[in-house]
């Protein structure tokens, strides 16, 4: 149990995917202009990341390992993730139209979100079990959510600020991200035993 809490807190705070590990920067900068879109994107990421962590683990254990095809991990994982995203989209559309309505437009973007492939690969690197992988995927998604929500709040404020011409748009967002990232460095000393 303690181990799981360690994974959970570690992935959310200590090695936050976006602000410490630089995974998923594209959506972090791209859809963080408004709190609403940020929440929608994060919801989709948490959902898909948890699923894909579990599925890629199964693919690796029962498909790649027995045939010694581990060198195809990257290729296999990205295809699995792409297919999974498509599958989730179809299922949601049929079974849960309200959820599809709120997450639908973000789903196609997730295939190219490096947080998803990143957590699949990190799971393999750290040799987590199936359950640990799923928890890690879920926690990584939560960490992404936390970063995105905090940052969208910062950016909504930035909109009304008087910013030098050449810093408008992306540059000032990056500088703001740097400050948000500094706050997360405070968690670096946190050790969960």
């Amino acid at each position: 149990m303690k181990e799981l809490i360690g994974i959970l807190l570690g992935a959310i705070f200590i090695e936050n995917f976006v602000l410490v590990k630089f995974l998923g920067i594209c959506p972090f900068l791209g859809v963080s202009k408004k709190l609403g879109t940020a929440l929608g994107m994060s919801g989709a990421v948490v959902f898909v990341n948890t699923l894909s962590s579990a599925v890629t683990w199964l693919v690796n254990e029962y498909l790649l390992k027995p045939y010694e095809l581990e060198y195809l991990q990257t290729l296999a994982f990205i295809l699995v993730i792409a297919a999974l995203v498509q599958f989730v989209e179809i299922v949601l559309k049929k079974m849960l139209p309200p959820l599809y309505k709120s997450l639908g437009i973000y789903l196609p973007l997730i295939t190219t979100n490096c947080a998803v492939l990143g957590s699949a690969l990190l799971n393999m690197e750290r040799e987590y079990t199936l359950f640990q992988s799923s928890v890690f995927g879920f926690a990584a998604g939560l960490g992404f959510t936390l970063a995105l929500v905090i940052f969208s709040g910062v950016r909504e404020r930035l909109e009304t600020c008087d910013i030098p011409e050449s810093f408008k748009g992306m540059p000032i967002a990056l500088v703001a991200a740097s400050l948000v990232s500094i706050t997360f460095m405070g968690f670096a000393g946190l050790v969960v035993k």
Partner: protein
Amino acid sequence: MAEKMKPIKALTNGFIKENPTLRLLLGMCPSLAITTLAQNAIGMGLAATFVLIGSNVVISSIRKIIPDKVRIPVFVTVIAGFVTIVQMLMAAYLPELNKQLGIYIPLIVVNCIIIARAEMFAVKNGPWLSALDGLGMGIGFTGAIFIIGSVRELLGQGTWMGMKVTVDWFDPATIMIMAPGGFLVMGVLIALVNKLSKGKKKDAEAEHQGCAMGCPGCEKVNAS
């Protein structure tokens, strides 16, 4: 891109005018994550350039037979193939660099630059032009992350390419090689490029407004 493109223009486009990192704002993750050392930046840049050229050539050669609906999975498969080649070559010949770059090598698969060039250029042009475009974009990417890496290494460690270059009384600011430094250097550098190319920036930026990244599907989010 209906008009015929001059080969030289296809090549030089990526250097400055459409620099993938600093102007099109593509592929931010690796640009931030591995630029703690100038050396790493070169390694990552070359790896990405190789993948870019390879995938651009292959995709533009088969562009006529790819059904439009499944083009993204096809692109991703081609790119993943080249990334696997790079991964194996690196593990065999450059184990040290491979260790440094870690999971960011396989993550080249989801680097927006590569998929965006496939979508924006390779599907509309022949293999020869696409190869040049890949090379140009690769050089632009490598150059940009090399600059970021140099700045961060210099300020964060007081070295450049592993050599000590600063005077003794300069105390390196470790924060520059940590996460916040990456965001900061990148932001200032983009602002600088904007400043220098004032007036001309409109067209490049208009294309990616809202979602700075040219990742496929972004338009959908922005449209809604």
